[in-house]
């Protein structure tokens, strides 16, 4: 039966059909929905892990005990999981293990656009690459068979357009895996002591040679003959763009991105007049083909940066002859970037933090939205958890007064992901700076996934909740303060006090995300603007709340001294959006924002 499925739903479905018993992931766009779909299957034990390294280790253990296992992450998540990954390649599997890497060319929601095909090559792991949901479902199933047959984890690489695209896919029933569940001692396989690892490495090389042989005849690496004047090599969604642009061309469509065949490439090159390699991001196939001595057109014609589109493929092949009839966008339109939600507890914290005039090291989450104007109060973002370590390093470099110049902020989920160890570092190595945890009890940016601080697991079942003050105490931190971020002055005073304190201080800014049910307890009726008092000074606009708008309209207002004065405009508050958080009222010098 054919069904319309997103790539992520197809991946989950394929894993379920393949008899998967365990699945783990840390949320990350564009991979997040895979585990959300997975959690709906009763036969599968699914979890949100604190980070991708843990997710892969849980996956490795489940596989070691014979279960077919799916582990999913975004491209940069593989960096976090790289340590177990490279050795898992030596260890291999018992139950099939498929690792999803969901790459994000164009950085729709990421800090870089690394091409994770390189991981398959360097970790010596095969990689399958679907171009739509139907292939995603099939390739995941094939991945489990391949994993067990070749005794290795198998990568399935998706990209944003595959994961978040919907296409028709053939769905089927579930078949349990053939491997028997059970755990047996086998040190040469499971214990990577140097002596055993030295025995495993040749097996890895031998396996990759066998897989390279398979690549020559693998049914998803296929020549689709057509017009001989244009031969296109492509995989993933780039194949679909190229097919759209050149429906009649000859194609070598690669379903397996690593290892790569030699003879198949040579055969295809001999069949066509000119070979174009159409691939997003790096010249991965192109370099391989050039190393084989084949003449190809690649990155000189197609961009190295960002996503491809059918238009870019056409232009790369035909040049100016592709036609330049496309219209230009309307110039100078106001942009519409994402901003913090009305009532977001981060708004109060950053409004207070801004008053301290410090350098703020941050990282990845909704709070990264504090970087652009007018909040302009987040000054670095490198990777998950980086802010704490970066602030500590900067404090060291700045010397004596470093601790009063640089602070760090981190969300609760990011803290659990990779913030505990750098905080431990600060405590251990005599750090005396200020670290702020923005504790909204949820992984908000990716769409509200549970985390170890939420009190519930992926399936919504009640679970324990990390006690942050106790954790800090355990790390040896003596100063721990909790602030209520909607009270801007009190928050500012606490932050100032803690910044000046001569020892390591942890401030927990605690209030639930406005998008989760727990926020009901803090939501209040919408605020109003007293039209008589608003001077149109725009102070309230600096808190960057989407519920507040400035209206250019000359008029008069009554100042706090009772004088009538002229104004150039006034503000209004959208009553449907406002949650009554009161941050804007606290920055209004006229007291014009009222309940």
């Amino acid at each position, binding site marked *: 039966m054919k069904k*319309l499925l997103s790539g992520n739903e197809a991946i989950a479905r394929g894993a379920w059909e393949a008899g998967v018993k365990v699945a783990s992931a840390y949320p990350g*766009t*564009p991979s*997040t*929905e895979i585990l959300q779909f997975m959690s709906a299957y009763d036969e599968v034990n699914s979890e949100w892990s604190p980070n991708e390294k843990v997710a892969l280790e849980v996956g490795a253990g489940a596989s070691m005990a014979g279960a077919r296992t799916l582990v999913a992450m975004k491209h940069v998540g593989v960096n976090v999981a790289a340590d177990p990954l490279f050795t898992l390649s030596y260890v291999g599997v018992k139950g099939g293990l498929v690792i999803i890497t969901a790459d994000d060319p164009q950085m*729709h*929601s990421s800090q870089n656009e690394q091409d994770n095909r390189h991981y398959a090559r360097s970790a010596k792991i095969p990689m399958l690459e679907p171009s*739509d949901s139907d292939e995603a479902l099939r390739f995941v199933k094939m991945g489990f068979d391949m994993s067990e047959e070749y005794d290795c984890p198998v990568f399935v690489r998706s990209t*944003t*357009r595959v994961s*978040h*695209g*919907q*296409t*028709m896919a053939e769905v089927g029933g579930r078949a349990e895996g053939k491997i028997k569940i059970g755990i047996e001692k086998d040190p040469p396989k499971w214990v990577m002591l140097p002596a055993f690892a030295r025995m495993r490495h040749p097996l890895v090389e031998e396996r990759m040679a066998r897989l390279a042989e398979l690549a020559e005849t693998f049914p998803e690496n296929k020549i689709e003959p057509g017009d001989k004047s244009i031969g296109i090599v492509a995989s993933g*969604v780039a194949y*679909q*763009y190229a*097919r*759209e*642009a050149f*429906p009649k061309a000859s194609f070598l469509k690669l379903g397996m991105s690593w290892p790569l065949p030699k003879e198949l490439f040579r055969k295809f090159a001999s069949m066509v007049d000119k070979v174009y390699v159409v691939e997003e991001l790096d010249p991965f196939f192109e370099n391989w083909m050039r190393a084989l001595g084949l003449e190809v057109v690649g990155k000189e014609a197609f961009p190295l940066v960002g996503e491809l*589109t*059918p*238009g870019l493929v056409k232009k790369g092949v035909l040049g100016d002859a592709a036609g330049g*009839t*496309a*219209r*230009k*966008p*309307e110039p100078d*339109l*106001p*942009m*519409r*970037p*994402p*901003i*913090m*939600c009305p009532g977001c507890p981060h708004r109060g914290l950053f409004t207070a933090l801004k008053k301290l005039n410090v350098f703020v090291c941050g990282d990845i989450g*909704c709070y990264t*939205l504090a970087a652009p104007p*007018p909040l302009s109060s987040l000054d670095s973002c490198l990777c998950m958890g980086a802010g704490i370590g970066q602030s500590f390093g900067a404090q060291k470099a700045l010397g004596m007064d470093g601790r009063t110049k640089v602070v760090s902020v981190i969300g609760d989920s990011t803290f659990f992901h990779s913030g505990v160890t750098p905080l431990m570092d600060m405590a251990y190595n005599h750090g005396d700076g200020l670290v702020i945890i923005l504790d909204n009890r949820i992984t908000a*940016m*990716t*769409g509200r996934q549970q985390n170890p601080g939420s009190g519930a697991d992926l399936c919504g079942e009640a679970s324990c909740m990390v006690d942050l003050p106790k954790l800090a105490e355990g790390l040896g931190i003596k100063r721990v303060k909790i602030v209520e971020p909607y009270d801007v002055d009190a928050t500012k005073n606490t932050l100032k006090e803690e910044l000046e304190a001569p020892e390591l201080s942890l401030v927990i800014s605690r209030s639930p995300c406005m*998008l989760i049910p727990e926020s009901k307890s803090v939501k209040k009726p919408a605020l109003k603007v007293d039209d008589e008092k608003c001077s149109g000074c*725009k102070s309230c*606009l600096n808190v*960057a709340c*989407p519920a*507040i*708008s*400035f209206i*250019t309209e000359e008029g008069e207002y009554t100042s706090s001294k009772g004088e009538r004065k002229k104004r150039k*405009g006034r503000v209004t508050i959208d009553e*449907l959006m406002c949650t009554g958080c009161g941050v804007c009222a606290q920055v209004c010098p006229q007291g014009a924002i009222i309940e």
Partner: protein
Amino acid sequence: MTVTNVLMAGVGGQGIILASEVMARIAAESGMDVKKSDVHGMAQRGGSVTSHVRFGDKVHSPLIPDGESDILMASEALECLRYLHLLKDGGRVAFNLQQIPPPSVSRGQQEYPAGILCKVRERDPQAIGVDCLKIAREAGNPKTATVVLLGALSALLPFKDDHWLEILKEEVPKKVVEVNLVAFKMGKDAAA
């Protein structure tokens, strides 16, 4: 049959993703090949959101090639103008006249663009411009504005009303099914 390309645009939180789900489903259930592509992640935080829906005998690219949109559906006026250049010549537009000021306009740094309806009419003289928010309020729930627009869009497509309503019933929250069905019908009437 060739491929029909519907580009849907709006502001995060307005329900563009839901509207494109309904659009893709109705085409799929009518036996066509369908591809849909949108970017999640930032969708809830008031950013600009688009969804590409393509259907026909055989669809390859999940993205609509530039300048080949047969229909542009926009749930906000500025977002309609932002993507208007992607409409093919002779393409149709259905949009919500509602204006949601983006941050730079709210802060008084930029003006909200004027004359949007005229610019839209230059590309599609029969463009359907509907005050969806007003109609949604009349229907009984301002949150159904994008469903009102979906009703208006349905006037440009060959699918039956009953089929649209059947899918809507399944896609919207159970508590608000009735008001959404009313909103859809009122949107379709407004487009007539």
